[in-house]
């Protein structure tokens, strides 16, 4: 049974990691846009 949950958890960890990377890139680009406007 542990294997079942491990698989589902692994799936969401992988998707979550990618989404976290995207979020980080978004905040970086927001910062850069701010500094450009100045």
């Amino acid at each position: 049974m542990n294997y079942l949950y491990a698989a589902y958890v692994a799936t969401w960890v992988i998707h979550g990691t990618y989404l976290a990377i995207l979020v980080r890139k978004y905040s970086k680009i927001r910062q850069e846009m701010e500094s450009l406007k100045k």
Partner: protein
Amino acid sequence: MKRGFSILAIVTALLLSFALYEALIAAPTERTMGDVQRIFYYHVPSAWTAFLLFLINFVASVVFLIRRDTKADILALVTAEVGVVFCTVVMATGPIWARPVWGIWWTWDLRLTLTLVLWLIYVSYLVLRRFSTSSKTPVLAAVLAIFGALDVPLVYFSIWFFRTQHPSPVIGGGGSLDPRMAHVLLINWAAFLCLASLVCWTRFRLEVLEREVEEAQALESLLEGSR
């Protein structure tokens, strides 16, 4: 645009939750493998989604080579990245499933091996995009994507024949599927397709912003240099 995005996000969240419930609770328990078989509802749709994304990548690459349309290039990049993410899921869930059922972490299962090779090809595609110093990187990447796509049927047949000579367990069991299970499988696939669309949309917008900022920054340093 913004409203469509929010609607898609909500639909995705709902579908994923519902699909999860169906997979873990509502779906009937498989006779031989037991509850572990439920990994199937995540493993297979992820593979189908990845293959679909790579197909879109191929089409976008061809369109880009013909029309040199930037949007096609960005779509190619986005589908490659998200495709690799879904591929990674397939390769994580596959062995986790194989281990309790067959006692081994890896088998030369057709779907699993094909996914591994696709993963390798598209990771090399992403590496080329990152490491290339040419100003025409999108063109080179598009060419590579076409080569990758041409390779797929060859990979399929070579693994297929290899398996007939070295038979090994098939993850996900061959044979016919209980209609209730097929139902759950399709629901999960629909949910993952929505997730893929959502993530691709997000990544697409991010890439557009990044390129605009890069252009603006280049312009600014150019102007500063001439002062």
